[in-house]
């Protein structure tokens, strides 16, 4: 910035700098056009659709806010909301705890650390649909390998995704398997940036490992943990592929989260007006959550 000030001192040069600044706009134009077409246009069009009673291949009629009022008295939507919250809560807490533990482990030096880390992040990169199909096979109540594993450690067999009581925890288990690596990577990046001095001081003062972790590592790591938390919350709310492939919202509607509800409304019942209202509400929830978490992050940074 200092450079900019010295350049601005001479009027001719100031002119040139301003020209540069304006011209950089052309770098952004192509991307802006695409973003406008595939991202902004859908947002606006969705709001427009949501004000209609609109069926794919059928009638459309302006209804104003009717879809929204209908939504708030729709118990199926209410249940989908509750299920999404339950799913998100579990799918955030467990990956965060495991991811933190894994990051602490991978921050230590040990033989074949690189290989172990690569294996650990493989689930995150694997194609979700392919992985979900193989998980489905392991859940088979009679022939699935998971019930065999349970029997080996003396536990009774589970119905996994085939029972209303266990379907959401089972889907969360896959989500944990899938996305704990991302939490680990984000926190590991933070650990790598920590200074060594406080630890040396703590050692001289006679602090033990746990005290050093509790009073040095954790506070310094907080900004990274909050970023990981933001990303995890949003990704958990977005979860669709795995749930759709494995249960399609079933058994019954026991795993029908907002995303599944939305998909069924739009592309199974062709009720795109109503589905668009769901999109708008869901979008507002995600934005509010992101804003809340960014605000928390700002506060963590300050203190």
């Amino acid at each position, binding site marked *: 910035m200092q450079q900019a000030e010295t350049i601005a001192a001479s009027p001719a040069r100031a002119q040139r700098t301003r020209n540069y600044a304006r011209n950089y706009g052309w770098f952004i134009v192509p991307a*802006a056009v695409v*973003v406008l077409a595939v991202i902004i246009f859908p947002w606006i069009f969705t709001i427009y659709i949501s004000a209609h009673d609109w069926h794919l291949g059928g009638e459309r009629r302006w209804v104003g806010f009717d879809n929204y009022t209908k939504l708030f008295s729709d118990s199926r939507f209410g249940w989908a909301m509750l299920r999404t919250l339950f799913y998100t809560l579990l799918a955030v807490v467990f990956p965060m705890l495991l991811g933190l533990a894994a990051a602490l482990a991978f921050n230590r030096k040990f033989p074949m650390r690189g290989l172990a880390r690569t294996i650990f992040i493989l689930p995150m*990169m694997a*194609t979700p649909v*392919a992985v979900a*199909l*193989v998980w489905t096979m392991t859940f088979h109540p009679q022939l699935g390998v998971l019930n065999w594993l349970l029997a080996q450690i003396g536990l009774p067999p589970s119905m996994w995704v085939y029972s209303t009581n266990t379907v959401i925890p089972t889907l969360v288990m896959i989500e944990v398997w899938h996305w704990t690596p991302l939490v680990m990577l984000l926190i590991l990046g933070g650990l790598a940036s920590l200074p060594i001095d406080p630890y040396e001081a703590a050692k001289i003062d006679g602090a033990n490992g746990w005290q050093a972790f509790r009073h040095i590592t954790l506070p310094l790591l907080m900004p990274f943990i909050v970023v990981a938390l933001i990303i995890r919350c949003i990704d958990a709310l977005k979860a669709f592929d795995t749930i759709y492939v494995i249960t399609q919202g079933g058994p019954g509607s026991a795993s029908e989260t907002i995303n599944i509800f939305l998909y069924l409304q*739009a592309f199974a019942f062709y009720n795109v007006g109503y589905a*668009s209202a769901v999109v708008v509400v869901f979008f507002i929830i995600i934005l509010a959550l992101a804003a809340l978490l960014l605000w928390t992050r700002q506060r963590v940074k300050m203190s």
Partner: protein
Amino acid sequence: MIVEAKRSPALYRLRRLIGNIGFGFSVLVLISPAILFFLWMFSLSLKNEMDNTDWPPIFIPQSPTLDNYREVFARNDFLRFAWNSIVVSFSATGIALLIGVPAGYGIAKTNAMRAAALILIARITPGLSYLIPLFLLFQWLGMTGTLTPIIITHLVITVPIVVWVMISFFEGLPPELEEAALVDGATIWQAFRYVALPLARPGITVATILSFIFSWNNFIFAMVLAGRETRTLPVAVNNMLTFEQIAWGPLSAAALLVTAPVLILTLVAQKQIVAGLTAGGVKGG
């Protein structure tokens, strides 16, 4: 610790040994779900149906067979769907690079925070929410049944990834070199093309890999937009499940073939992927 070691070195060494064994064991526990899952997937794909549904499960195939793979290639138009996936992922990644790399440069240079925030919001919005308006649009334009709508919708994922990675990368480059070029009379386009772009090659590699992987893995867009002929691999493999509940061998073989390119890419380019993901926490879908 030094005092303790002097007092009883044997006890200290023993305690360290136990600590190391415990640590090694916990690392094993951490990575075993990933190892066991992929090995089981591989094992299922190498066994015939009798062995796959045997109880107790057979882990190491007694007489491994490639029949499942042969079956996958023999029907289901697997090669056609593979070609679709290749066309879609390469096009979506290529277009995203073409427009996203300059955009990342422009945003980094002008510090356009609003543009960056917009990209971030696009990144956190569920992919599903773009589908209804785009589906209606493609229907009106009569584009359904071709690969074009699928490529266009994949831009929703790839463009934010590329722009986001490139912003953080260009911000990390020292500005002195381009300024020297500008002072010597280069246009800003030349400064970008001949100075910044060659320096940004590692960043472009990261953006390419991530964008390709998330486009390849994407399911929902092609699921809704693809016709019988234009399915991508994730959609094709999902359809196999719907029609053949219990054919575990071919299904595992197909699933493994679909995800193998991505897994191999991860093993080869692990360093770039980690760098890209930690830089912006980007993820598609």
